């Protein structure tokens, strides 16, 4: 009877496999080093967890099969068992070892995805400011001097650094196939480092609930060759209108808009928060890794 409970997850997993049409799940379908690191971490942890589950399930089935009342003589009276030092030390020590291993993996992979993605020679990272307002995303390219709304083009084979902030509620910038997510907030800038190895179109979205239009707050991420990217940037710079302060403020007030492109950024008149040194001179791309806002919110540890 109990075994039904135990095989259920297996059945469910099988069902899912069929139903999802054998397509790899998005998180495992990584197209860049950041997402690949995370995908590997997740697969590794699933394997470790499966082993733990197996141990618990085998023990449970064993107990239920052997010690059910129907298998015991009617006059059997279970003994008094205080506990067992040896056993208890074992099942404290082994989990501690597992936790230690996972902790090392965590720290290692976290620092890997939190820093500039490597393996692209000495190419300097492309800086893109991604900011959210109501239910749309603004992408500013200070290097190219252009800005887009609700779509994002990036070159492949080059590290990219996103600087995130919000003009309203907290949002979370997430392109699952390229990198894990990070919050965009109104009073500080956060960063995501990623790179795309394959050209293609990837789903990006805000994953942090921020009100009425949340479900539709998606953007398409187009990864293209450096040449295509340069060509596109040049076209935008040449043909699209300038983004004036008035136009930008109007844009902020509009809840939903489609795709838009501009040949200047909002950074000059509406700088990113607590990022004074950089936006005033948007051509300097020096990377200060010791962000003062890093520890924000951590004063709470009492």
């Amino acid at each position, binding site marked *: 009877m109990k075994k039904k409970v135990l095989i259920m997850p297996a059945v469910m997993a099988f069902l899912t496999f069929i139903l999802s049409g054998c397509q790899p799940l998005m998180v495992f379908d990584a197209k860049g080093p950041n997402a690949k690191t995370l995908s590997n971490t997740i697969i590794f942890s699933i394997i470790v967890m499966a082993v733990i589950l197996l141990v618990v399930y085998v023990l449970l089935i064993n107990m239920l099969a052997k010690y059910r009342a129907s298998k015991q003589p009617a006059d059997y009276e279970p003994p008094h068992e205080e506990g067992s030092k040896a056993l208890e030390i074992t099942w404290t020590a082994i989990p501690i070892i597992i936790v230690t291993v996972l902790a090392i993996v965590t720290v290692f992979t976290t620092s890997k995805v939190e820093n500039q993605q490597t393996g692209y020679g000495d190419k300097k990272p492309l800086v893109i400011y991604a900011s959210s307002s109501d239910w749309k995303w603004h992408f500013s390219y200070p290097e190219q001097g252009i800005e887009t709304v609700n779509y994002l083009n990036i070159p492949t084979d080059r590290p990219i650094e996103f600087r995130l902030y919000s003009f309203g509620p907290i949002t979370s910038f997430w392109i699952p196939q390229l990198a894990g997510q990070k919050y965009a907030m109104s009073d500080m800038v956060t960063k995501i480092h990623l790179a795309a190895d394959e050209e293609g179109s990837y789903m990006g979205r805000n994953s942090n609930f921020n009100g009425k239009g949340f479900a539709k707050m998606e953007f398409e991420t187009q990864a293209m060759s450096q040449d295509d990217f340069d060509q596109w940037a040049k076209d935008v710079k040449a043909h699209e209108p300038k983004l004036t302060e008035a136009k930008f403020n109007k844009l902020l007030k509009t809840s939903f808009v489609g795709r838009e492109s501009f040949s200047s950024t909002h950074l000059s008149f509406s700088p990113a928060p607590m990022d004074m040194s950089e936006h005033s001179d948007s051509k300097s791309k020096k990377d200060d890794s010791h962000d003062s806002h890093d520890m924000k*919110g951590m*004063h709470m540890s*009492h």
Partner: protein
Amino acid sequence: MSKENKSVPLEYSTEENELKIFGFWVFLGAEILLFATLFSVYFALVDRTGSGPIGKELFELPPVLVETFVLLTSSFLIGLGVHAMRIGRTKAMIVFYILTLVLGAVFLGVEINEFLTYIHDGATIQTSAFMSSLMTLLGTHGAHVTFGLLWGSGILLQIKKRGLNAKTANKAFIFSLYWHFLDVVWIFIFSFVYLKGVL
């Protein structure tokens, strides 16, 4: 529950009394957490003054010293009150308790005046995150003192009407714990808000 135990002070003499004193200590534990949270909020926001004043521009030590002196003295007096209660001198106890409450009222008066000065200077609870956290921390303490004044007066009335017995002694003792607690909180406010602010 009504069995009286003569070997301990009156306020501990019944089982119910003992439970109440223990329960009140647990409550004070929760109160410590409440104020600890308010202090944490204050420390998180102390430098976030926006366009408003910073602590150094705002704080004036003389009234704060008066408040500190008044509250410390009241705490001492209520200690004497409990002592008087234990040796059975009801009259003296009542006098000490009344003095305690009077000093509490003085403290409150000075604090209200301090708030009015801030507001007069254009620094209200809406001015900045720093001002919000400062006035909430001080205000919560002040509200506790205000409640203490009402509560303490109620207990005095009961002692006056019903005399000192296991019940009223228990209440008076618990009230003294509350009052000492407010004193301790104030010492923290004095040190970590005012002194740290002006230095």
